[in-house]
């Protein structure tokens, strides 16, 4: 009996050691057979919830130009300006535009879908063109890092952050970025029309 226990403990030991293996995780490498571009933002495979409560991956945005920025609903000053710039840009595009506007929230804790929906309604961000996204802290960190946006959460749960509007092509590759709040929307508009008409 004792020797059986001893053997069992050896087996258990081997088993436990083998468990120290690298957990498998898989990057989304293909969308319906077509491989993602190496420079595509859509290589980020985490899940996000929209203001409608739908769960999506960023690659769901592929197929049209995307204007993307990061903000949060409780943001006192700079975020309303970013949103206004994006709305202004939208107003300069044709009605038939396929371009979508994405606002990803820094605030994983408070900016849940219902709050995002309310924010969208208050600011008249139409659901045909606007995606407001809630994600985990990790997703937010990765997206900010990929876009090159800096941010820090302070002790009150508010965020200090840089301001950056990025334009992605239909494959999710960053084609243009505009920093700050003072540059107007002319260049952004030009870039979008280039992308929409297939100009390089």
């Amino acid at each position, binding site marked *: 009996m004792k020797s059986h226990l001893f053997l069992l403990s050896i087996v258990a*030991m081997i088993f436990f050691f083998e468990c120290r293996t*690298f957990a*498998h995780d898989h990057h989304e*490498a293909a969308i319906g057979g077509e491989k993602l571009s190496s*420079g*595509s933002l859509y290589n980020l495979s985490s899940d996000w919830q929209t203001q409608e409560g739908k769960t999506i991956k960023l690659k769901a945005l592929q197929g049209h130009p995307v204007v993307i920025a990061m903000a949060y609903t409780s943001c006192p000053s700079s975020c309303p300006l970013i949103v206004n710039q994006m709305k202004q840009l939208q107003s300069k595009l044709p009605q038939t535009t396929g371009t979508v506007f994405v606002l990803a929230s820094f605030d994983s804790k408070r900016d849940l879908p219902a709050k995002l929906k309310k924010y969208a309604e208050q600011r008249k961000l139409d659901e045909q063109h606007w995606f407001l996204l809630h994600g985990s802290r990790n997703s937010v960190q990765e997206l900010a*890092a990929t876009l090159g946006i*800096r941010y820090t959460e302070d002790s009150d749960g508010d965020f200090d952050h840089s301001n950056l509007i990025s334009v992605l092509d239909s494959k999710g590759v960053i084609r243009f970025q505009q920093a700050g709040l003072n540059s107007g929307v002319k260049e952004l508009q030009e870039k979008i029309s280039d992308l929409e008409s297939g100009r390089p």
Partner: protein
Amino acid sequence: MTKLKLMLLIFITPLFSFAGMEGMVAVPAGTYRPFVLKSNSKKGALQTFRSIPVKLASFYMDQKVVTNQDFSDFVKMHPEWSRSEVPVIFADEHYLSSWKSDISSGGTDRQKKPVTGVSWFAAKAYCESLGKTLPTTDQWEYALEDKGRNSPALKNQILEWYSKPNTRSLQDAGSDSANGYGLHDMAGVIWEWTLDFNAFMAEDELRDNSNTGSLFCGGGSLGKLSADDYATFMRFSFRSSLKAKDTTMNLGFRCAKEKS
């Protein structure tokens, strides 16, 4: 020893392995005054200061930096992180460029050396695959501070390291003597990624934008930095100059783990 003791030993030792703790030490809880780097556009100067003390809970930290061997094991299991497969959005064109092949740094003498030429995404993926994370900047700096145990000698060591051009090859990970927490490689070996390396700094116009350019612009208050804080300033400035996909030949990492 008795059979009972032997069995207990056999059961308990692998439990550390199962929890992923081997090669880690517990850094005890304590307070720490974060170094802050901000630009003050009104005064036209760079501001550095130590903010109010923050409490850090105890956490686990890798005793040594991650080696070529460690990273090679990871890439074998996750070929999507090999240099020929990794998306360019996650790692620049110099990713693992010193390695002999996709899966090995080559040379038995290189296996125990710190892995460098890795991006933040790659470092993060490595840690997460082991159920760990990158340490936060606060955790890393707190660990370096070592409760002020070796303060003058440590600061001299760091300043000396920063002042030398890096022509010598890297030493093996863990070959220096450990600090008071049992951590190796904290000074004089490589720069290390942290989880929140891209924390906000007041203004982006603090550095020129050339890739090989200087890390920072000078400012009036910079001259008032003590030698003590100059070394810290160098690290903060370096980290904030990085983009997540960047790799450099002197930048590696280690992992940490929250205590649940």
